[in-house]
């Protein structure tokens, strides 16, 4: 064995190091492994280098392992179904079996033609109408998500111009109501006043607060912006926002903290609390899709098939531990998202 050979093995060159890293991590194939092993006359030296590579990278094992949401598969499937224009994956066997069961062997041509015509009509209705509804629902959901991204952009612009402070028009008085103005008692303070700061400050167009899936909602007129400090009509804002009880800064929130989402299901179209026992789990804004769009603090807009999309799977439409609502509830803690208009 020559000294020159030993020396070249002591400090491998860059290309050699690349191969050894792959070998140490098990990324090389069998041929490469054999070639690398054959190039070392002293296998202990090869093992020592591999151990050093693994030791160098060992701190990476401390990088916390990201944990996917509990209902991740359901969320993905809901997104796939929506994007693919199908509400449910079709089971082709069922309608065929039903059709076969109904066929008779009689020689009545007019009746057959009639049945054929009826089947054709049913087929058209069955395919085109749900298809149209599905496409319309999907388009509305996409436009709504785009609205939330626009609102998120407006929030980012607002915070940049206001020393990272989030839009905050004031707090709900202690024991007061967060219902929109005119519907609560004297102690009410509409939560939508915070969002209205974005409109009034021209950070977001009034149209971005109108969810196309909510037929009765309409944008506040531009000439009215400076005359009000809240959306003049409950129908001018399709969305619910996180209820906050004190001024807050953008940096104080977890990236996945929900900020704005489709309308809280506890409220009817005129923002009145609906009866107990009739409250659906998800927002009713996109009724055909059973879920809601949510804007989070990192400004991503996601679709969720469940309202449990807050921090630690918190329900964004309900306060932890509260079952009966009067309009006076406030979040129990900062991580407890409670989105109301």
């Amino acid at each position: 064995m020559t000294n020159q050979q030993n020396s070249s093995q002591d400090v491998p060159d860059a290309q050699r190091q690349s191969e050894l890293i792959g070998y140490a991590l098990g990324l090389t194939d069998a041929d490469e492994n054999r070639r690398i092993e054959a190039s070392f006359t002293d296998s202990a030296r090869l093992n020592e280098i591999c151990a050093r590579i693994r030791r160098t990278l060992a701190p990476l094992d401390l990088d916390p392992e990201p944990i996917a949401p509990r209902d991740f598969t359901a969320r993905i499937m809901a997104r796939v179904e929506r994007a693919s224009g199908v509400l449910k994956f079709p089971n082709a066997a069922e309608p065929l079996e039903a059709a076969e069961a109904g066929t008779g062997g009689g020689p009545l041509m007019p009746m057959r033609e009639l049945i054929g015509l009826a089947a054709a009509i049913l087929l058209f209705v069955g395919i085109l109408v749900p298809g149209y509804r599905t496409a319309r629902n999907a388009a509305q959901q996409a436009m709504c998500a785009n609205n939330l991204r626009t609102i998120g952009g407006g929030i980012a612009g607002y915070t940049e111009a206001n020393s990272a402070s989030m839009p905050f028009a004031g707090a709900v008085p202690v024991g007061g109501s967060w219902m929109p103005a005119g519907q609560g008692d004297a102690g009410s303070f509409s939560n939508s006043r915070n969002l209205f700061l974005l409109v009034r400050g021209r950070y977001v167009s009034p149209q971005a607060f109108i969810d196309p899936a909510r037929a009765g909602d309409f944008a506040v007129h531009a000439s009215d912006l400076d005359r009000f400090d809240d959306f003049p009509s409950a129908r001018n804002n399709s969305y619910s926002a996180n209820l906050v009880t004190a001024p807050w800064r953008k940096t104080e929130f977890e990236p996945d903290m929900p900020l704005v989402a489709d309308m809280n299901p506890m409220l009817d179209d005129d923002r009145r609390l609906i009866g107990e026992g009739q409250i659906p789990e998800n927002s009713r804004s996109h009724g055909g899709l059973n879920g809601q769009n949510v804007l989070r603090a990192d400004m991503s807009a996601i679709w969720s098939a469940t309202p449990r999309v807050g921090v630690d799977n918190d329900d964004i439409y309900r306060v932890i531990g509260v079952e009966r609502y009067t309009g006076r509830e406030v979040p129990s803690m900062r991580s407890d998202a409670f989105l109301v208009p």
Partner: protein
Amino acid sequence: MNRRGDRGSAASDESLLADFLSGDHGSFEILVERHSEDLFRFVSRFIRNSAAAEDVVQETFVQVFQSAAGFDASRRFRPWLFTIAANKARDFLRSRLRKRELPLSQGAGGDASDAVSYLDFLSDDEAAPDSALEAEETRRRVGEVVARMPDNLREVLMLGYFQRFAYKEIADILSIPLGTVKSRLHAAVSHFAQQYRKLEESGSRGRGD
């Protein structure tokens, strides 16, 4: 017992995709169940944002659903899935840079191109992580070093170290030559070793060790 799960555990990814293309939509859900968490871990570590990672993974499966017919049956499904996810994750990082000009440290090498400088980290006496350090402090340092690593190096490191894709599979996923994968992984390891050591030394000075 979940019948779908039983069937799914026996079938290969490629045969499930073929079943899906034949009209068995349940097979697609099995693929989602099988890979979504692993994909989430990769994307989340790569883009360093778990909320956005959820969005990226959802978009990835939407694309798989819509593009399944174009899948080359001679290839393996998992690298193809990661190819789509890596592309979408890079799109996210690019859009984030457009939105906010982050002062992303690219290290001594300037930009994150393939013209990486090779650090002979093996020639140094690489110390093992100080076992006496608080675990939380070490975690923070690791997270900081990985987050500041140039995107193209972090991507290769995540695929190689955490996902254990073979060199050739990483080349397929990223559509780059095999030699580039090797040089990038080497650069990533060097970068990590160098930056981690720097942080460790500055931490020791701060503590007055």
